[in-house]
């Protein structure tokens, strides 16, 4: 079973086609980069896969579950249990501490407190934030915020991580560290990852790179390694 299967996906905004029949797939544990100029439809594709936005035509199947068969409730459940997103602007909840941000999806899923705390503690250590876990988002640096966002994404043990320009808002050193982290967690957990990026640096952690242009996937290649 594929981690992600997208077939002939289409999407328009106000009559302007943004996606014009995109097809791609990811194996479990596979990491792929999605590149392309601004407006090519990368982020839209990510939103559609995450059930954040609705598509007009085509199919999306995540770990064997067809997205179009899910109602609003089902899509919410999908985001709580199967697909996690890491955003360019981190999107941490400003009223929660770093620790609580990571804990929050587990709370939504009703994980018992003891398990939850243990798991969050492990994640905090895994992303290297032991000393910053009680800090509020506005007290964290960009790199730290993205580490929290990655830990939050991992907390639900997703099958698929969607990362939208995960290093786009970070300096190069911090960006490298975040890429290392993403690679490490993907390897160690066998979680598939689709990374939207402008940066060639990102492709070093991906087995495949796909290029989008005008709402279509126009090129595919194996990573330079």
């Amino acid at each position, binding site marked *: 079973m594929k981690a992600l299967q997208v077939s002939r996906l289409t999407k328009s905004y106000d009559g302007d086609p943004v996606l014009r029949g995109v097809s791609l797939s990811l194996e479990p544990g596979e990491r792929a980069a999605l590149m392309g100029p601004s407006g090519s439809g990368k*982020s839209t594709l990510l*939103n559609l896969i*995450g*059930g*954040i*936005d609705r598509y007009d035509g085509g199919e999306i199947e995540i770990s064997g579950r067809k997205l179009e068969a899910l109602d*609003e*409730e089902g899509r*919410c*459940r*999908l*985001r*709580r*249990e199967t697909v996690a*997103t890491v*955003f360019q602007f981190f*999107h*941490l*909840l*400003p*009223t*929660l501490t770093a620790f*609580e941000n990571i804990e*929050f*999806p587990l*709370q*939504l899923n*009703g994980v018992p407190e003891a398990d939850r705390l243990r798991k969050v503690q492990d994640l905090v250590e895994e992303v290297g934030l032991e000393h910053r876990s009680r800090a509020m988002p506005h007290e964290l640096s960009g790199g730290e915020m993205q580490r929290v966002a990655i830990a*939050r994404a991992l907390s639900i043990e997703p099958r698929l991580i969607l990362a*939208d320009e995960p290093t786009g808002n970070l300096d190069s050193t911090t960006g490298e560290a975040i890429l290392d982290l993403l690679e490490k967690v993907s390897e160690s957990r066998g979680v598939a990852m689709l990374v939207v990026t402008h940066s060639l640096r990102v492709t070093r952690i991906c087995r495949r790179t796909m290029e989008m242009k005008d709402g279509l996937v126009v090129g595919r290649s194996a990573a330079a390694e």
Partner: protein
Amino acid sequence: MRRGSILAGDRRISSVLWSRFALRHWRQEPGLTALLVGILALGVAVFLAVRLANKAAVSGFSLFTESVAGESDFLIRSPAGPLGVGILRDLRRASGTDAVGLFPVLEVPAVDAKNPEGAILRLVGADLVALQNAANDGGSAAGSGPSLTAEESGEVVLGREDMGFVGEAFARARNLEPGDEYSLLVNDRPVPITVQGILQENPTRPAVPDNLILMDLPGLQKLVEEEGALSRVEIRVPLGAERGRVLERTRLAYSQLAERKDLIMETPEDRKSSVTRMSAAFRMNLTILSGLALVVGVYLIMQAMEAAVVKRRAEIAILRALGVTPRQIRRAWLLESLVLGAAGAAVGILLGRLLATGLVGAIARTVDTMYHQTTTSSVTLGWGEVLFSLSFGIAASVVAGFLPAREAAATPPAQAVRQGVQGGGLALLRKKGVGLTLLVVGIACAWLPPFQTSGGTLVPAGGYLAAIVLVVSLSILVGILFTPLSGLLGGREGDPMRRYAASQLRRPGGRHRLTAAGLAVAVGMSAAMGILVASFEHTLTSWIGQLLKADIYVAAAGSSSAAGEGTISPETWRRLGNLRGVAGMDKLRRYTITVEEREVFLAGSDYHGDARRRPQLVWLDAPDEPGPEALRGEEGSIPLAWISEPFARRLEAGKGDVVEFPTPAGTKSARVAGVYADYGNEFGTILLSRHHTSRWFQDDSVSRIAVYLEGGKDAEKVLETIRGEFPALVSRTNARLRSESLRIFHQTFAVTYALEAIAVVIAVAGLGLAMTGLLLERKNELATLRSLGASRRSIARAAAWEGSALAAAGLAGGFAISFLLGWILIFVVNPQSFGWTLAYRIPWLSFAGLTAVTLAVAAAVAWAVGHRNANLRSDRED
């Protein structure tokens, strides 16, 4: 099973959202939270305070036995004039061998000699021995426990006209102890009373009214020179196994006797409700008005919650992106509203309890002046009221939170990853067609007939419905003002920030419309009250001007209450007429009678000879012969009468009708010759020549006198003489009576002024919150303006322009609402509730003041909000 787990999940998520988000936001912004709780608290407090004060103000209308002797089963009274003492013999005979307790009572109004224009006191004469026996008989009283106990009465000295018992509150307020002397004015003379004992508060019986003086019956009869006269006989059937049967036999026997003798038999509850029903419309209108603060509060909570949704939109979108469902979001926001409502209501209940203590006096004075004699009881806050207010506050808050909650739940998760999707405001406010349709429907509703409650109170349901529909209609239509306002503000030249503000109004968002609509509602309702008060004042002033033609007005003590009527004896009024400088007098004697189970006034008047200086009644249906001579009519023919507007309305009588009414000389009739305006009371008056009434009632005393002076006499000097010669009479010059009338008028409306002010303050606070919401929505836009070189002050200036324009739209819409609401209040609600016709007057000067203050405050608030929200991160770091 699956549904159960979903519900459990919902609850869990709600609890997480509550503890991790709502509570933290409240803690982060304690000022805003306190403001919201405070607004709700104020709304609930005003509403509760008026309810409590209303209750306390009329609960003082208690019957004698309720207070001292325990609850009576029935009472017998005459429809006109006093009962004769022979009634006791008839009642004894009718009850046969049944041991029925009869308590004859005479009740006379009096005033404190040191404060003759103060509250009315009730001099109650009762058979003290019978009361004491009832008390000592314990169980024989109808369940109310001991009455006048031996300790209280001590050695009762019977038949004394100068001794009486008072309640604890009465004694405490006047610092009296047994044996002390207390001076009263009764009718036209001073009367010293020695306190014989203090009636102790007793939890097993109702509190003794704080204006009651209890005397032995023969003593009081002697004091007022009405030997054998009774106001009523109160009847109690003793407790015991036979009580049910005896009660039924007595009811039958006494009702037959009452019918035979043309008397009225009723239960104390009937009596109480028939009297308090008179003021029901006044109290209901006050309660509805007090809801105004809460309505505006609801609107403000709605705005504040909307602003919070906008502010937390990104957070909501993230939550949605993390898998929280719209239902869970909606539930969390409704929970916030509910908790806010509960907190606001709890604070409001405490505040309302305090406010009620302040209000009760004002309401009681109005009720006393216009309806029935009452004394205030202490304000009591029962669990029922607490629960009612709590539910009302919570319901109001949840209603207010509903739309913002829906808006929050509609936040798409995609908004977490893109910017610029904004919203807010009600979609309804964009529908001009709906607004116009509602305008027509609202006006049509005003013609619906009033609804009559089971208690007989007329509720102007059509008027209220019309008011609500028109308010909604105009709050929708206010949106059409934005385009012209934008044109006025804009233009190619001048301050660029003003043009920026104008550009915001060119495409007004839902929040603009909601803000202007809310302000329009608050201003509209307040200004409508202003129109009502101005119309009332204008009508009353011209009525008083036309009516008060004499130089000096003299009344017996206790005549300032609508129901209390002291008398001036023939000897006194003749002496007054013979004073030097007095050219003539108009005399009036007024009796309370019962016609068709409604209490009305029967008045007999006679006028002095100079037709030019007589009172000019304001005619609603003028008689063919307006002079008072016409009232006297010819001997043997049916007397003519003039009736007041409330009488015409209550008894559905008009010019040409023959009205029948009871008198001690039997049922009499009179032909209605004209209908006049009367804003002095709502009971209704039938006015005849005193020539008839003095014969029917065998009574030559009068209640009020208008004194006309000879030309050139100084009214103040003659007043001095009258006060010196007749210290027990209340006398005023024409000018003083006018100013006193207006003082009472303003006192009556004091509560409404306060409510109006609260509504406008709340609405302007709402504008501040709305501006916060608008500017938060435009955070990026403001940052762009700053990057283009606009200073914080510039942005604050733009906000001030925008806020002023919003306030202008709200004011314009509000005044439109007020003109229509005023029309409904004056021509629909008022005639149906009170039977008064008023002239429509708009207080332009007050409106100009309201406009200036609202615009200035709105501009200042918007400026402050703009300044606060225009700061960049660098500003904060600086």
